């Protein structure tokens, strides 16, 4: 599974430019899905048919990552940029980005008058080794993702775009292991989550699921002087109760917890005070759906070193498997 994670997190895929990630997943899951299609927004939708006795279940993991988009190329060939999704200036300096063609660049900022203060984003720039506007290979409108190779530290893994490629891994693995289910399960590898849950909203509006489950990362409260949160890496899958955008369906939360307890899957209850996931969009799409989220605890979210614990990932896969192979009566 480490190999799958490595390939996925190192792929390029800022919101709106998820093609490479989608193509990879499409090839990876083709042998396991009964039907597959790509919708108008670029969501990859794979159906695993049930035995006809269950529900229509939508499982979503987003393929996109935060990134930047070039807004201006200077006379000397430096690139000014704006954010795609939640980019935090403190994570930028000295970092590296990767463009769709594999070209990389480094980020730096204008002179700091006061080193204790961050610049606004428009005072940072990317250097791709160009010497002038003319020889710069990058144009205004090009998008880039942050770049770092996967770092494996025993059970702990750090990389860019763990948010939410690790959710994709959970979805892919669950699909591969799903031999029989009462439910028609639509695995949606969604797009444009980081810019407003746009892919999942469209997918849910089209699919009209009875139940939707997002697979995404959540924060943790186990690092020095962080915001208090009762989630720790290595303590299991996180079952979402509430986040900044939504309150998960109480019955579905109860069911997830029962499944985890019955199968002895380590789990923790999650109350996230900021941020949200595809589950919010799916909850209010069309006539609404019963919506919840299986979260992978993650440190340093939206930095280029997002960190998860492989045992938590395994727990998420198992929990999703337990939910999908049992009846969902709510």
């Amino acid at each position, binding site marked *: 599974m480490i190999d799958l994670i490595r390939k996925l997190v190192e792929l390029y895929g800022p919101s709106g430019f998820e093609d490479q990630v989608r193509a990879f997943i499409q090839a990876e899951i083709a042998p396991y899905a009964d039907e597959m299609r790509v919708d108008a927004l670029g969501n990859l939708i794979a159906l695993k048919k049930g035995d006809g006795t269950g529900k229509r279940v939508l499982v979503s993991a987003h393929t996109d990552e935060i990134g930047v988009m070039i807004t201006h190329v200077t006379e000397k060939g430096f690139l000014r940029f704006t954010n795609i999704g939640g980019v935090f200036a403190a994570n930028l300096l000295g970092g590296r980005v990767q463009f769709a063609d594999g070209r990389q660049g480094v980020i730096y900022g204008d002179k700091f008058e006061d080193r204790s203060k961050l610049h606004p984003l428009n005072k940072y720039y990317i250097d791709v080794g160009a010497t002038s506007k003319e020889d710069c290979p990058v144009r205004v409108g090009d998008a880039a993702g942050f770049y770092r190779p996967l770092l494996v530290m025993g059970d702990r893994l750090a990389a860019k775009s763990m948010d939410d490629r690790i959710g994709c891994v959970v979805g892919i693995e669950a699909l591969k292991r799903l031999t029989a289910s009462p439910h028609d399960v639509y695995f949606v590898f969604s797009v444009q989550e980081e810019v407003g849950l746009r892919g999942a909203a469209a997918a849910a509006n089209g699919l009209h699921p*009875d139940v939707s489950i997002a697979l995404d990362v959540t924060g943790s409260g186990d690092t020095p002087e962080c915001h208090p949160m009762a989630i720790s890496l290595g303590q299991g899958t996180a*079952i979402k*109760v509430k986040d900044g955008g939504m*309150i998960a*369906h*109480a019955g579905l939360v109860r069911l997830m917890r029962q499944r985890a307890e019955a199968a002895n899957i380590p789990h923790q209850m*999650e109350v996230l005070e900021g941020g949200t996931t595809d589950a919010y969009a799916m909850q209010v799409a069309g*006539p*609404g759906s019963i919506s919840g989220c299986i979260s992978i605890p993650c440190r340093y979210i939206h930095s280029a070193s997002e960190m998860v614990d492989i045992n938590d990932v395994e727990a998420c896969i198992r929990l999703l498997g337990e939910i999908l192979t049992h009846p969902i009566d709510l």
Partner: protein
Amino acid sequence: MDVKQLLQTLTETPGPSGQESPIAQAVTTAWTPYVDLLMTDALGNLIGLKKGDGEAPRPRILLAAHMDEIALLVTQVLAYPDENGYGFLKVTKVGGVDTRQTLGQQVLVHGQRELPGVIGCLPPHLLPENRRSKPIGFEDMVVDVGLPYVELKQLVGVGDFVSFRQPLRELHNGRVAGKSLDNRASVAAVTVCLDWLRGRKHSWDVIAVATTQEEIGLRGAFVAAGGQQPDLAIALDVTWAKGPLAQDGGLTFELGEGPTLGYGPNIHPGIYKGLQEAAAAIELKVTPEGQPTLSGTDAAALQIARAGIPTGLICIPQRYMHTMVETMALNDIERTGRLLAEFIARLDGDFLNQLNKSLMDG
């Protein structure tokens, strides 16, 4: 119908946003005698259908009164001074809890069983210096149910809901005070309306919806309108009453002087006019309430569901909104239900045509 009795049941039943099943149960009991069909949807909206007398297919009016209430949610279970000591709960808010009034309130923790507790805080001299003269924030407060940590952690976990606890109190002049009158008062008004409609002919189908998750962003109403696809919708909510230190012209309204009728971009002018005509027909006093942008009520969600739904808004004045002593006049609630019933009874086959025509002509 004893409106005070109904309100007492409705306000004292817990129903935090996202955990509305107890209050949905209470509303089910209240509405069962009046409707032909009751059901819930994926968000927990309680939907009651009262069929009209007209010929099928009948036009449908949706009434939305949110039944959820602001509440708290457990984020941590802590021990002090260690695991052999007492247990305490740290919480976050569900909806717009006014932290200036939380200290010393009673709550009900919905763990393995219901545990009464209080909201406590260290005294100012033990708080960090920058917190001493501030309202207590969630970083300062604890929920204390008086149990040792070992016992507490068996009963309560992260993600358990905590509702406020305050019996309905009767004041003078037919006024009542309590928690979650925002918006159980409107649920009561819809019940009054359904009661009136038992004795009136109405050609339209009435879909009464006790909506969920209004306090965290109008979620229930949006989905209910999407699912029910009504031809017309009316949201009911509370508005600010004039009261001590709240006399703002245009923003606050007299308690006991009837409901307000919203107008503005969020509200279809034809429905506003229809409600005024209904009020005039029964000589019921109403006050116009301008909503210059979005109303902050379910009306904002209903209007843009599906291909758009003509939407109206009725609000009932309330003092001390989002505290545990929200204060209202019973006769405002009764009049709101009466007005709504009159409006519905007057709806005919031509109303919808006139409604959209009115945007161009006249």
